[in-house]
């Protein structure tokens, strides 16, 4: 059985930052990543980040992944990286079961764990929503920006949040036509700077619209869209047919925290955090002692806040194992201040209302 001090599950922005932060405090870390490369979803994000300097603002996601990987090399004596390794289970005796390359099972016994397992894309219910050609917006981003393959010729984007807007722009950069972007909400959810860029390129952004139905034999051929009223009910007679071969669903993400639920962490459904998330204390420790969480797995936000949460969780997990740096309080407060700045504004207030529901002031280890 393999032993390690801190096990970080997930090599995306939160996980890598947790590993770096814990190593900075002096801990030895093993990062396991189920994919064959590190960076999580940063590897397909060609847009520049917002936020401030600490979260690599004005740097493209793809380059942030490279910066974090370069930082890992600085700590190569402390941080071990296992790619192509999926964690399958966390057990009561503290043993973790993992699978390498879908073939070799092995066990890891860490002293503490940071689960930074990320999120997955939600679907949307409408007739024939399972037709090939209907993909998650992030999936299309992967296809285009990681593999250089066009998803099709003519795209309907469903959802005008930041992901919907950004992926629409990136589709056009790849030479793909975007027929329209629609959103059931009465106004655009994403940043106006993204929306106006797209509007200038002549793509209609249709608010108060939804997909009524997809049409196609083996693949998507047409989409029927319609207007919705203020209660999101379709308005009869407003249907319109669009000839599209691709539909991107960009209606939000759901935290991926099955491992935590399976281990018995107290979970709570929090709409503001987009799903079921673990109850935790202010040091990112769940109700299972020495099991920490960070990033989208603890509630959907942006990669910028995931990175700061990762730094915090790594700092606290290392401290719990005895690697408490002299400037612990300073570092903790610094990261907390960064999160506070990222969470200013109406979206941030919404997130904070969600976080209030899962953070307990005292430890509640079960």
């Amino acid at each position: 059985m393999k032993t390690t001090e801190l096990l970080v599950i997930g090599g995306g922005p939160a996980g890598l930052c947790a590993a770096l932060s814990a190593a900075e405090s002096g801990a030895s870390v093993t990062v396991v990543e189920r994919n064959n490369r590190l960076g999580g979803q940063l590897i397909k994000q060609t847009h520049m980040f917002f936020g401030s300097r600490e979260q690599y603002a004005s740097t493209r996601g793809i380059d942030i992944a490279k910066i974090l990987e370069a930082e890992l090399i600085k700590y190569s004596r402390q941080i071990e990286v296992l790619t192509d390794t999926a964690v399958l289970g966390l057990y009561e005796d503290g043993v973790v079961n993992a699978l390498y390359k879908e073939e070799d099972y092995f066990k890891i016994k860490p002293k503490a764990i940071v689960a930074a397992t990320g999120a997955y894309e939600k679907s949307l219910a409408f007739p024939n929503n399972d037709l090939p050609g209907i993909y998650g917006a992030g999936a299309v981003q992967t296809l285009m920006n990681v593999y250089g393959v066009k998803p099709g010729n003519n795209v309907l984007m469903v959802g005008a949040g930041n992901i919907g807007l950004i992926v629409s722009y990136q589709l056009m950069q790849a030479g793909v036509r975007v027929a329209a972007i629609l959103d059931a909400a009465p106004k655009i959810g994403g940043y106006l700077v993204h929306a106006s860029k797209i509007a200038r390129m002549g793509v209609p952004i249709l608010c108060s619209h939804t997909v009524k139905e997809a049409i196609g034999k083996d693949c998507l051929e047409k989409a029927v869209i319609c207007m919705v009223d203020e209660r999101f009910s379709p308005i009869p007679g407003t249907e319109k047919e669009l000839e599209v071969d691709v539909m991107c669903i960009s209606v939000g993400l759901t935290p991926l925290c099955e491992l935590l639920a399976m281990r018995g962490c107290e979970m709570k459904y929090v709409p503001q955090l987009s799903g079921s998330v673990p109850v935790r204390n202010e040091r990112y420790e769940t109700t299972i002692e020495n099991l920490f969480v960070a990033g989208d797995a603890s509630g959907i936000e942006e990669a910028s806040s995931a990175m700061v949460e990762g730094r915090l969780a790594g700092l606290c997990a290392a401290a719990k194992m005895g690697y408490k740096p002299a400037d612990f309080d300073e570092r903790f407060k610094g990261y907390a201040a960064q999160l506070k700045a990222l969470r200013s504004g109406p979206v941030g207030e919404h997130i904070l209302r969600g976080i209030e529901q899962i953070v307990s002031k005292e430890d509640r280890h079960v």
Partner: protein
Amino acid sequence: MRIEEHPILDFKRGKILNFTFNGEKLTGYEGESIAAALHAAGVKVLGESLNLHRPRGFYCAIGNCSSCLMVVNGVPNVKTCVTELKEGMVVQTQRGKGVLK
């Protein structure tokens, strides 16, 4: 269906690999997923649903939704969206749940 010119990205494609999809000879590039190679070759239907046999393509492309499961080199339930293409792979549409050997 491949992107040849891009304002930000420079796709450094690996060497050309040969594989088959339901017996048909296709090519892809080293370093890409099976699903990406198939999509570039115009194959969007990767499988079918278990009960109603409806066509299935990938959905999440990050190995999470199981919509892209196929039989690869005789092994069923391979997540083709995250499995790297290799020279000579035999890729087939999966019917049913697959059998463990």
